[in-house]
């Protein structure tokens, strides 16, 4: 009897989840499928137009990320040192940097395909890892893992690991040393300077 109840409540739960938002693996699949389709058809992006790529990332990809969460992870214990305004400003600059990096990576696109592994989502789970593989002709495939957390607005990505390298964790040491040397405002300034220098590079190209 108990198991029957559990069975029906899990179905009920599953339907509610479906109604609210897509499952994490389905979300990744639909977003990456859509983005790759656009990139495949866009010669400008393929030949290095980072502005166009950034526009695509901002429109299609960024809304699925939780940049505040990412920034908090990258700052680690220094996060609590920052006041709410600083936290927002840091998240804003970090978002610009990550979007730019992602866009640059998109312009390097050549015939790769993405294979998203199905995820067995357990009832009540709010923190998951979706695995995928980038396949490229004539080369070893690259492991690409997405970390997602479920919040009030559905599943949001808070980290990406490329070949085992976490994009967020990779900033931890350099952020920490910046904070150690010149405080939260110093880190904010360093990020702003980096983002501005990126602008001039993009224009020169």
């Amino acid at each position: 009897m108990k198991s029957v109840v559990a069975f029906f409540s899990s179905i009920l739960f599953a339907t509610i989840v479906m109604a609210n938002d897509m499952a994490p693996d389905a979300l990744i699949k639909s977003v990456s499928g859509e983005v790759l389709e656009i990139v495949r058809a866009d010669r400008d992006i393929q030949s290095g137009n980072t502005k166009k790529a950034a526009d695509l990332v901002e429109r299609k990809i960024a809304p699925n990320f939780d940049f505040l969460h990412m920034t908090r992870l990258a700052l680690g214990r220094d996060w609590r040192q920052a006041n709410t305004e600083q936290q927002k400003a840091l998240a804003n600059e970090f978002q610009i940097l990550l979007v730019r990096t992602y866009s640059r990576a998109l312009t390097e696109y050549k015939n790769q395909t993405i294979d998203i592994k199905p995820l067995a989502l357990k009832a009540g789970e709010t923190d998951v890892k979706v695995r995928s593989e980038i396949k490229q002709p004539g080369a070893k495939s690259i492991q690409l893992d997405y970390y997602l957390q479920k919040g009030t607005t559905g599943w949001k990505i808070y980290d990406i690991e490329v070949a085992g390298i976490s994009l967020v964790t990779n900033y931890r040491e350099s952020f920490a040393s910046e904070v150690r040397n010149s405080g939260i405002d110093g880190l904010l300034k360093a990020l702003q300077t980096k983002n501005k220098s990126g602008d001039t590079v993009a224009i020169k190209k």
Partner: protein
Amino acid sequence: MKTLSVRVKSVALMFLVAGLTTGCATSGETKDPIEGFNRAVFSFNDGLDKVVLKPVAKGYDAVLPNPVRTGVTNFFGNVADVFVGVNNLLQGKLTAGVSDFGRVAVNSTIGLLGVLDVASNMGLEKHDEDFGQTFGRWGVGSGAYVVVPVFGPRTVRDTAGLVLDVAADPVANLDHVPTRNTLAAVRLVNNRADLLPADKVIEEAALDKYSYVRDAYLQRRRSLIHDGNAPREAESQ
């Protein structure tokens, strides 16, 4: 071939020394205790790359059509697979090791001396193993981060591994010197060309290139030792 046994002996000695150093290095708090030295070597390597290797790799990349590039990468991948298999066996991964030797057998014959990676299409997946990873599997601590002149980022453990990798390298052991040198040079340029796309992304991403490359290297090695299933690092909050 008699030079090989001499070489292996000296390598074993170096490994012993490196192993002892590892023991000392892991006791330290920071993973980069010789950062000043490392930064100096890093900028030396970076300069060397900018002036010599990268321009050559760019030219190579521009001149060779993609299928040829793939063939070259496959050829050297096949040469490397022999010791990938040995390392899998040393790590106790019997199935993976046997599959690696199967890859070499298939690719060296049907795959026209390794130029075609027929084995991958047959479902024999290519693995990435080296002596540094084997030591990691055996429980040897990574030790301090070291930027080795010319070779680039390593840890003390991976430097010991590198010494064995070089000693075991079929290309380095060729008796015919001109062939050996030509193959080694082509392989170096080809590997560098494969990394060209990553360059731009790193330039875009890094606040400080030195620490970005260091942390990426350390994360990557950790992931490789766990065959892509490394537990997530603590969030230290």
